[in-house]
């Protein structure tokens, strides 16, 4: 077993995942540095969401390794992976995935409440983040009353509020118009850079991937045509996956 490079906060090696016979991930390797914004680009069905779910511990790959902050993720129990998601990761869903019966305020505060932060402190932090993402005025509304753009911003506030180490954004602008999407991305990246939060951004749009520091491309579950920054070129790597 090869220990991952020290400067990578998240590191994966030849991930394989084929849930129903067809390979969703076929030997994908990648490393993400701390504070970096990495775009995972590819058409629909190329395995972006599966890759993000594997990296965030929601799915366990059939083969391959995932290391986070110097510790293995793929061997952890389901309970420990839940804890990891709660304490260190944030997640932005394509459609927001807000809890419909909670107000916007409580939705944003939910990660802190789940960690055991007192109610008052969690709501104060939520107010702060909602203001920063320009959705402060709708704090007392239900998600059903918001526009898709506002909903996505609330989802971003919820992902950022606990100042996680890594935020996984799965097609965060997929349901938004261009201008709204661009603004949402700008706020997300600004907040991430100011707090040194690593962002992994899955998208099928090149203009979205352009805001990232680095882009890797997926096609049919494999990495293709990536930039040659080259610090991982040892043998034993799956032949299909090209190095970063």
């Amino acid at each position, binding site marked *: 077993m090869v220990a991952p490079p020290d400067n990578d906060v998240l590191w994966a090696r030849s991930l394989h995942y084929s849930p129903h016979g067809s390979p969703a991930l076929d030997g994908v390797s990648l490393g993400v540095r701390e504070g970096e914004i990495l775009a995972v680009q590819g058409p629909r069905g190329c395995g972006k969401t599966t890759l993000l779910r594997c990296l965030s511990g929601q799915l366990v790959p059939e083969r391959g390794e995932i290391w986070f902050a110097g510790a293995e993720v793929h061997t952890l129990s389901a309970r420990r992976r*839940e804890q990891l998601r709660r304490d260190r990761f944030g997640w932005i869903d394509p459609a927001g995935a807000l809890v419909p019966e909670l107000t916007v305020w409580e939705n944003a505060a*939910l990660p802190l409440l789940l960690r055991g932060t007192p109610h008052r402190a969690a709501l104060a932090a939520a107010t702060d983040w909602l203001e920063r993402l320009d959705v402060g005025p709708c704090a007392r509304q239900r998600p059903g009353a918001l526009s898709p753009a506002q909903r996505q911003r609330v989802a971003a506030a919820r992902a950022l509020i606990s100042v996680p180490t890594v935020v996984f954004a799965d097609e965060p602008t997929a349901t938004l118009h261009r201008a709204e999407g661009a603004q949402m991305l700008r706020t997300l990246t600004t907040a991430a850079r100011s707090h040194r939060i690593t962002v992994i951004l899955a998208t099928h749009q090149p203009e979205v991937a352009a805001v990232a520091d680095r882009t890797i491309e997926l096609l049919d579950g494999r990495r293709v045509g990536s930039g040659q920054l080259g610090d991982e070129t040892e043998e034993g790597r799956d032949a299909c996956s090209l190095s970063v």
Partner: protein
Amino acid sequence: MFALRLILGTHPLVLLRRLLVVVAATGVGLLLLCALGYAVAHPGRPSASLPRLLWCALPLAAAAHFAVAVARADPVTRPRAGLSAVGLGSGRLSGLATAWTAFCCTVGSALALLVYLQLRGGPAGRAAGASELLAPGRQLPLPAALTLLALLPAVASVAVAVSLRSPRRPAGRSGARAGGTEEAADDGTPPAGLPWGVALLGAGLAAGAYTARTGAAPPPAGPAGSLGVLAGWLLSAAGLAVAGPGLAHLCGRLLQAGSPGPARLLAGRGLMEQARRVGRPLGVACAVAAATLAAATLYGSSGAVSLGPMTGLGAGLVVACTAATLLTAALETRRARLDTRDALLELGATAALLRTAVALRALVLLAVFAPLTWAVAALTVLPLTR
């Protein structure tokens, strides 16, 4: 044929629920036929036959209520984006649900007729030594039997058609998550029935107490005042059913009061959101439980079974249908919350937290509705036993 494929291709649990509707319809049909048999056997005593026929109304209502709950919870009749795209939208699916309910109830009624005729030994009633409910030795009036048997299919299908009448949107993963579920409870307004329900309940209890004061005996022993007592009971039951959603909403509000932690917050808000769905069956179950308690107190000691075997069959049907309705509503609630559960698990909420929230919800409902049931039963019985 396509509809049949849709319907038969579902989960065994769903098929079981539909089978239970058939069984309930069979029970109601048998009960109605027994009332008819009694009337045929005693043509000179309409005053004894009428209570038997009226008694059938309660199981019929319970069975119709159950049929509506099953139709609403049926995954086949729920609007789906895929079927909507090929032109099988909310309207056609509601029609399908109505037709299917009518079919289930008709099958149940036909089974009831077959069982009844088998027990009698044919339409002419040749079975010797049969109970008076089977009208031995007399010809069963077939048009009357068919009319009675058509009651439940008609009532249930109309109820299903009315309850599915409001246009429902296909609730896909994203739609439901965004709060666009079929129930219009997104804005968090409480259900409006609570004051009306409390008023009805109070009026029912008062009516019972008033008629008891004038010297009536509990039904059906005293013919004069029993109508007032019965009306009081029905009013109280209606009040509980109307107040159910509002009460459930209030429970949720209490549960998330103060500065709640995640478990209390999720449990309370979930209850407030689902109050419309679970409140009505819960209120009905509460009414049935209160009536059972009251009846056990009033008649249990004397052992008086006034209507013969029909009492047990009817009461059993009402209790079983109410319990099944409540269970169906609970399962539907669980299904409606699947997307929320996924979203919470994505955030890293533990399964234990979600289980705690569900347990809290059940506990607070029990803590409010159980004493209420007991109080209503005690207040109903009090003026009659004093």
